[in-house]
Each structure stands twice: as C-alpha cells, then as structure tokens.
C-alpha cells in the first residue's frame, strides 16, 4: 500500500503537468458519450465512441487525449475520459427488449459489471469530473449521491452537467435543488445547446487533483 502510494507520487511528479484528466461520470444513458463526442468533435474533429439507446453501450473507459478547449481567450488542455455508466445493478434480462438475448445478453452484462468496476477504479486517477445527469430523470439517485460524496471526500472538483434540456420533460432546476453546493450547467449535448457555457465553466473550475 505504502509502496503503491510512493509509485503514484513518482508518477504524478514526472507526468506532464499540463493536461487535466477530465472524467465524465454518471448513471447509464444520461448522455456521457454524446457529451464526450461533442467536446472531442468541437476541438479535434474526431469522436470518442459509439452512442446507443441500449444501456451499458460504453463498457470500457474511452479516452481522447490532448484536447485543447478555449473560452474567452483562455485555453485548457484536457484528456477526456468517458466512463462506463455507473449502476448498482446489471440484469442481463433487461437487454431483451433491445433485441439482445441469450449468451450475448449475458456477455454484455458481464462486460458492463467489469466496466463499472473499472470506472470506480479510475476515480483515483481523474483531476476533475463532469457528473452528467439526465434532465428528465430524478437526480436524487443513490448512484449520484454516492458519486458526489466520493468526489467531495477526495477533494476532486466536480461540475454537474444537466443534459437533455432539449426534451419537453426536462426539469434542470431539480438538479440545482438537489445539489445546491455544486456548479451546474444545463446543456443538450446532442444539439450543442449551451455548450460554450460548459467550456467556460470547465476552464474556470477544472484543476489537477491534489
């Protein structure tokens, strides 16, 4: 354990201190990959990963390195880390309604559980987090509460990104009521609404983890 910390310290000391490791976290199907794609496409012209309506489409951590974002004359170099969606349960039977059955469904569920384990491990290696929430869903889920509690305990800066504000059912103010202590940006990653404000907020709040 002590040796591991020493290695980590050495790694942090020598690693390039210019890029912020920006983790994109949240429950499944809140639009994390859509957001990662939007950011990456805006600044590099390339996407990060595939988007799907089927939960747990992202089952491995997807990365896009050295993405330089800019807002109001200020620049920030970030490494985008698009995480698998966090969940407390993964039931392979739920994939049936998306046409995924039998062995494929079980395999997908197994990969999804591994992805969640991986995303939790990565909490030790992110500098700043975008906690993405779906504006049409209740934000007070245990996954969100646990995630934010963890980030606070680790002193990792977090920005709440309320996605899907283009939908009629969207209630972005619910997030502000539930978590009033965090900076919040309402966006539609799909349509690019308010994305400039997100860049401005990231540049303002992002910092390397201590």
């Amino acid at each position, binding site marked *: 354990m002590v040796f591991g910390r020493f290695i980590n310290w050495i790694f942090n000391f020598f690693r390039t201190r210019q890029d912020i490791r920006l983790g994109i976290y949240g429950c499944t199907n809140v639009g994390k990959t859509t957001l990662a794609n939007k950011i990456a496409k805006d600044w590099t012209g390339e996407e990060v990963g595939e988007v799907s309506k089927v939960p747990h489409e992202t089952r491995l951590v997807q990365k896009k390195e050295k993405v330089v974002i800019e807002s109001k004359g200020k620049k920030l170099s970030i490494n985008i880390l698009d995480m698998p969606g966090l969940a407390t349960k993964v039931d*392979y039977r739920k994939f049936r309604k998306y046409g995924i059955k039998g062995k494929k469904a079980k395999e997908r569920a197994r990969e999804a*559980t591994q992805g969640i384990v991986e995303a939790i491990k990565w909490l030790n290696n992110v500098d700043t987090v975008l906690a993405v929430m779906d504006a049409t869903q*209740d934000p007070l889920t*245990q996954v969100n509460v*646990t995630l934010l509690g963890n980030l606070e305990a680790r002193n990792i800066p977090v920005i709440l990104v309320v996605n899907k504000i283009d939908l009629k059912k969207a209630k972005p103010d619910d997030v502000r009521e539930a978590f009033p202590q965090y900076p919040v940006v309402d966006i539609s990653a799909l349509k690019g609404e308010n994305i400039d404000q997100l860049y401005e907020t990231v540049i303002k709040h992002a910092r390397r983890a201590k």
Partner: protein
Amino acid sequence: MKLKMDFISSATLNGKSEKKKINYILKKVKKGSVLVLDGVMKPGEEMNLIRETMRRVDDGFPGIEVCSLRKEMKGLKLLFDRLSDGKERFWNWVTHGPAKTDLKTGMTLIGPAKIIKKIKKNPNSFSVLAEV
C-alpha cells in the same frame, strides 16, 4: 412469497474493516434479505460496496438497490465528526491494519435488485417499492 427484513444495529458493523462490512452486507443481501442499517457508511465505502456488488453479479443476482439518509451536520457537530475521522485515520495508521471505521449517523436500506424495484428518495425520507 415471503420477504425477510433484517434490522441491523450500528454496533454490529462499527469497528469492522470496510471489507468485513461489505462482506457482511452482501452475504445477507445475496440470500434475499432486505437490510435496514442503523447508520450510513462513508462515501468511499458505499462506492466500494457498489464495486464489490458488480464483482458478485451473476445470473441469479443482478445487483442491489441501496438508499442512505445521512444526517446533515453543521457547526460544532461537524467539527467533532471531522475530529473523529482524523482519530480513526491516525489509529489505523498507527496499527497499520485495514481501516476500521464506525457507521455515521443516519439510515441505510440495502436489498436485492430482484426484490426492490424502485426507491424514491427525498432529501429527508425515501419510499421503497418491493415485489416478492
């Protein structure tokens, strides 16, 4: 169908390492019990409970539903709570053992996702929909 609920006092889990707490909880939940804990785990312990749950997911156990109500602390109470955390950390550092911590003030419900269908949480209460 029957539903088994276990009400666990904080004394049962206090002073146990994170690993022992998680094992205790998941062993009971995997057998089908719904647990009500007289306290809440630390955020890191809760996250590792999710991580360990994922490692134990199989065809018959899709995971858990969990909800905790943490008592908000302010002023002196918050200060004493932080000092207590510091004391725990210091003691664990001195003994070089796995961190042994007490539950925080609050309440937690943890049950198998097969039984607990939905938990609706409000800031100071929650309601549970179960199907047996």
